[in-house]
């Protein structure tokens, strides 16, 4: 029995290994600017990597990271032996965190000063980020018993925590967060709508069309589920779950770890959790009922997901808001409040929009800059002409508010080193005046300008104090605190007559709207919600109040009567005593910092044995934490010829152009290839790159040039992805110089008619190839040149092939077998495609020799082993014109 378990464990380890290798095969995503002066600070368990200008943050992070290590070592009883790289950078205006175990432990935090928009009213501090990301890393890296033995043998390939059900992977790190309001909001909405996800739907990432996305769903539910387990089954349960997963990886595949840790079947535990959540919801409902019930409101938007930042036009005739949804292109939408018509205005990754006048919108927009930075800049959009104009360049403007003079706007701007500032910007002569600067311990969350332009309201985060509302004047930078308490207060907005300042606050367990009478200095509660209300804005005529509220479809726009007489007066306790002093940052000794050296981090971290009937060998790869250098190495012995073989691939992107080297040596083949890539431009909507290289293969030298262009255009549901790849090559052969030209043009149109199971697509591709020496093959069901429906494959030096596919969703299944004992086999989607292939190949292009194939393919997407692997089971029927029999194919693999 023990032997059997060990074999199964080994099988699992190899499965993990395959998954990891697959993930690592993705080309390097350049995230860190190699031209920055990168430094390192080394502590007992961490190496902090940072640009020199972020030294103060790095020193603070070093101290926090060691505390995080101590905390998680206590909580989970495990600490990784190898050091963890903690990369800090400031290349984005939106905070970003990522953690990876393979091939090294790397936590990357980008712009770790501010907030995550996802949390709306919550501040994510550097401490929150490091504790949660490191907890995630420790949990996934944990090995015990057999897995520890395997790790000692094979290195970092073994990480059984990666196979944990998604809910546990995502939930553990959330468990220690100080604020659970976001997760509670999601779960209450599910309870309210009776749409609790199944246990299987929380176990693996999958393509989910409805709100929320699968990972967010698992994170929110995992947060509360683990809290429930601690309450119901004992505080040691999260640690026990991690230990069982690390020690008995097989238990992962059947949710058995939960049974082993909690001594009850997964379904019974989950049912108890559902009741627990319902009781919590019922308590809140009764509490609100005793206060007068949920405030009456009318839903004004229908798209859900992230429908945020509504603003009325000055006349009150239109509402503009920002909408983001994985299926639609993000951008600004416009609603006619009379008939409710909602139409997309423009595509953008935008911040909150404002109206400058009846026909002009201003908004911050994210753009790529210099290939590395993703910063906000100020843009204007003219409704009459549909023209967009960029007003600033590389100024990192993330908030804008117009002043009543019609030509001045108040801007919130990110400065260097986590600082931020308020700037008055004259739109006519483009002059700027800094109103106030804030140090990194103070971050602007949201802001508003009073109708008379004499007051500015800020939601400001202060280290050690949280988010509070402050007032200041546009002429003087002095801050006057309005709320000063532990509850987060955000989204200030003035009423149209300037009497009230509205804001959202988390005071009674739920985010709700509150108001402050500026003359009477009296606070009022404006809404009572079960799930949450944010971002209030009063209508220009002063009769309606528009705001964002959460429901089971996501965030939507809601409206209610603007009736101050119905608001309930409340007292908001002011924090007594002096503000909590920020903890002084311990200074790390200067001599322990050093310039970043990518090469020193590249020693192999694992060895994968390669065993075949005719060869034995080893494979390894590594990449430095900043992704500047990367290699893959294979070496082995051919058992037939007893000759050694080796293959090395190395990439260096420390400077332009990026260098890529490939060396292959076997008994029969010697191949070398050196290429240089110049990434001309990269943005959210386009990519331009050029690659030039030389190579040698078995005595034939080749010079090649490749160009790649890709564009994304569209609006809302309609999306068009175009790409072109051209390659030209000259080869020097003994018989003379030969040439090659290949071309691939692809168009993918996402058609703008949504059906419950998804969106249909039209895909079109034309490929051509020519060479005066080489041949190309046409007639396969996969590969570069598709021609389905024919049994034989044609080859020739001139090729042209075109493919047209109509891809349509059939059924969004989202189902796992089996309910009482969930399997790691998740059926995600069923799709179909109708295709038409046309092509010819030969010594010349003879259009009369065109081959035409057509057919149908059914595709079933499967997620295996809690997201370890996913792929498509494809059953195809293709018929070639003038062929006797149709071709039937059944394949398993990634989509194309």
């Amino acid at each position, binding site marked *: 029995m023990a032997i059997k378990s060990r074999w199964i464990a080994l099988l699992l380890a190899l499965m993990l290994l395959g998954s990891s290798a697959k993930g690592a095969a993705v080309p390097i995503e350049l995230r860190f600017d190699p031209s920055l002066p990168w430094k390192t600070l080394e502590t007992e368990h961490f190496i902090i990597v940072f640009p020199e200008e972020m030294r103060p943050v790095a020193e603070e992070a070093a101290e926090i990271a060691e505390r995080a290590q101590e905390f998680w070592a206590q909580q989970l009883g495990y600490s990784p032996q190898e050091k963890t790289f903690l990369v800090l950078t400031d290349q984005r205006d939106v905070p970003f965190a990522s953690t990876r175990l393979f091939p090294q432990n790397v936590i990357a935090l980008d712009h770790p000063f501010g907030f995550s928009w996802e949390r709306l009213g919550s501040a994510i501090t550097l401490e929150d980020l490091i504790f949660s990301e490191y907890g995630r890393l420790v949990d996934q890296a944990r090995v015990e018993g057999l897995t520890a033995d395997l790790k000692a043998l094979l290195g970092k390939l073994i990480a059984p925590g990666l196979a944990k059900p998604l809910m546990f992977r995502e939930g553990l790190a959330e468990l220690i967060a100080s604020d659970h309001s976001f997760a509670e909001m999601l779960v209450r909405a599910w309870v309210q709508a009776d749409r609790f996800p199944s246990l299987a739907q929380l176990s693996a990432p999958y393509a989910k069309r409805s709100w929320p996305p699968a990972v967010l769903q698992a994170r929110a539910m995992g947060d509360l589920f683990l809290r429930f387990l601690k309450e119901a089954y004992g505080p040691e349960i999260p640690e026990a779950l991690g230990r069982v997963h690390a020690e008995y990886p097989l238990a992962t595949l059947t949710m058995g770890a939960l049974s082993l840790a909690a001594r009850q079947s997964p379904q019974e535990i989950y049912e108890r959790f559902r009741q627990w959540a319902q009781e919590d919801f019922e308590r809140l409902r009764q509490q609100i009922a005793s206060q007068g019930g949920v405030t009456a409101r009318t839903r004004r938007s229908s798209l859900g997901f992230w429908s945020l930042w509504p603003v009325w036009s000055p006349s009150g005739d239109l509402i503009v808001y920002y909408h983001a949804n994985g299926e639609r292109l993000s951008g600004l939408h416009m609603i006619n409040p009379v008939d409710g018509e909602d139409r997309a205005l423009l595509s953008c990754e935008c911040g909150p929009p404002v109206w400058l006048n009846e026909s002009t919108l201003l908004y911050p927009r994210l753009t790529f800059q210099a290939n590395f930075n993703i910063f906000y800049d100020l843009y204007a959009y003219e409704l009459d002409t549909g023209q967009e104009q960029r007003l600033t360049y590389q100024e990192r403007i993330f908030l804008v508010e117009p002043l009543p003079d019609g030509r001045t706007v108040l801007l919130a701007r990110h400065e260097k080193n986590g600082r931020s500032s308020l700037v008055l910007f004259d739109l006519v002569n483009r002059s700027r005046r800094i109103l106030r600067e804030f140090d990194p311990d103070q971050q602007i969350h949201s802001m508003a300008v009073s109708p008379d332009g004499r007051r500015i309201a800020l939601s400001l985060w202060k280290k050690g104090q949280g988010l509070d509302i402050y007032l200041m004047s546009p002429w003087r930078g002095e801050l006057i605190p309005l709320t000063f308490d532990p509850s987060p207060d955000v989204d200030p907005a003035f009423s149209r007559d300037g009497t009230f300042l509205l804001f959202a606050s988390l005071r009674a367990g739920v985010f709700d709207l509150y108001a402050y009478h500026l003359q009477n200095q009296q606070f009022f509660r404006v809404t009572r919600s079960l799930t949450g209300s944010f971002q209030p804005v009063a209508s220009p005529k002063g009769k309606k109040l528009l705001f964002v509220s959460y429901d089971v479809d996501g965030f939507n726009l809601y409206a209610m009567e603007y009736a101050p007489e119905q608001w309930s007066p409340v007292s908001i306790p002011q924090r007594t005593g002096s503000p909590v002093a920020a903890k002084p940052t311990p200074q790390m000794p200067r001599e322990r910092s050093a310039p970043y050296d990518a090469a020193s981090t590249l020693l192999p971290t694992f060895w994968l044995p390669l065993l075949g009937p005719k060869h034995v060998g080893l494979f390894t790869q590594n990449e430095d934490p900043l992704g500047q250098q990367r290699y893959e190495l294979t070496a082995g012995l051919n058992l037939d010829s007893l000759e050694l073989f080796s293959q090395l691939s190395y990439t260096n992107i420390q400077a332009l152009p990026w260098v890529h080297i490939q060396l292959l040596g076997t008994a029969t083949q010697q191949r070398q290839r050196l290429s240089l890539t110049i990434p*001309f431009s990269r943005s959210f909507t*386009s990519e*331009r790159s050029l690659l030039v290289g030389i190579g040698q293969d078995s005595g034939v030298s080749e010079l090649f040039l490749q*160009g790649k*262009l890709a*564009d994304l*255009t569209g609006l809302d549901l309609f999306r*068009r992805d*175009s790409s*072109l790849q*051209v390659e*030209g090559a000259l080869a020097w052969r003994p018989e003379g110089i030969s*040439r090659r*030209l290949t*071309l691939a*043009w692809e*168009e993918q149109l996402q058609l703008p008619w949504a059906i419950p199971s998804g969106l249909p697509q039209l895909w079109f591709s*034309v490929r*051509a190839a*020519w060479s*005066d020496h080489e041949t190309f093959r046409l007639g396969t069901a996969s590969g570069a040149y598709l021609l389905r429906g024919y049994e034989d494959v044609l080859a020739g*030096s*001139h090729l*042209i092939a075109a493919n047209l596919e109509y891809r349509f969703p059939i059924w969004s299944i989202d189902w796992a077998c089996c309910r009482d004992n969930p399997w790691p086999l998740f059926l995600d989607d069923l799709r179909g495609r109708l295709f038409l292939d046309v092509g010819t190949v030969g*010594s*010349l*292009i*003879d*259009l*009369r020799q065109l081959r035409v194939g057509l057919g149908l393919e059914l595709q079933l997407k499967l997620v295996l082993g809690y997201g370890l692997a996913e792929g498509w089971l494809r059953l195809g029927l293709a018929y070639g014109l003038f062929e006797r029999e149709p071709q039937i194919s059944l394949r398993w693999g990634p989509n194309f």
Partner: protein
Amino acid sequence: MTNGRSCWKNSNNTGDRFIWLVLVLLGIVTLGESSWGQLQQPPPQASPRLRPVIAQSRIDGLLLGLDLQLTFGAWELRAGGAYGLLSQAGRFRTRIQYLQAIGFSYGDWPTSLVLGRSGEQGLHLTIDLIALRRLLGDAEGGLLAEILKQSRLEGTGFLGRLWPGEGETEGPQVGYLHLRGFIHWPLPFGTTFEARGEFLYGQPEATERPFQTFFSSSRVWVDQTSLELRLGELDNPVGLKGFRFDLGLRSYPEAVAGHRFLLASLEQRFELFSGYLGSLDLTSLLGPVLGWFPVHLRMKSSVFFEGGLVLGEGDPLSPDQVLFGWGTALLLPDLGAQVSIAINREGMPVLKVEAGVLP
């Protein structure tokens, strides 16, 4: 058609390529001015205006000269002269135009509306029918006005002598009527329809038998994708020399030489670069009005597939009359130029540099 278009194949004629290079450099300077107004306020367009003439013809080789433009209210007067480096001959043209609608010109200049002819000497009467319609006050709004805003319809009558073609000592005395139109029709969803057509009916003095051509091109643009269909037919019973279509495919080194053709092409363009390169300040030399040359550069790349049929007079369709090609190109819209590499169905790679071919 041949007018307004120069085409150099990738031949061994380094002289041609040198000339082309000179033209490109000078073209950057001169044509860059046209797109400047979109980004910055241009200097005021004052009368008189002096523009350089840089052209190329089979007989004259490189032509260098000057064009002078004078405006008097609704009247516009143009006069230009140039010197052909190869022919060592002087050329001239004069034109008087009223409200940019009706023009009368006389000249001896290396362009002709007759296929295959490199120049002509004589009198032209040109009427811009859309401008004339506007002049007559018929300017209601609506869809028609929207279409006509960017469309042209022009008729030209000529009396005079064509320059001699190859093998001729003297060109024929002819009269012809030429009608050409261009329609630009913006459609919903970013789609645009463009159509152009030309019709020429002429008669040499020595015979009563006419020669005529018809050419039509229709193109649909969807964003940066275009599908173009071209067809043409000519009738040359008088045996006018060189009277043939000179409109080819990018993948064929030789121009289309038949009496009838039907060609189609599918093209997708990608924006590569768009930017302002700088300004050439020659105000000390040419004054504040003429001496300021902002230079912009826009670059695009494209992929294209093309095919069609070409028939000689009375020919049955044979396999070698079926054309097909594909390739990729670098486009310089500011200069109206493109450099393309294309492969035809026989596998012959063709590198082509063309100017004056982009819309």
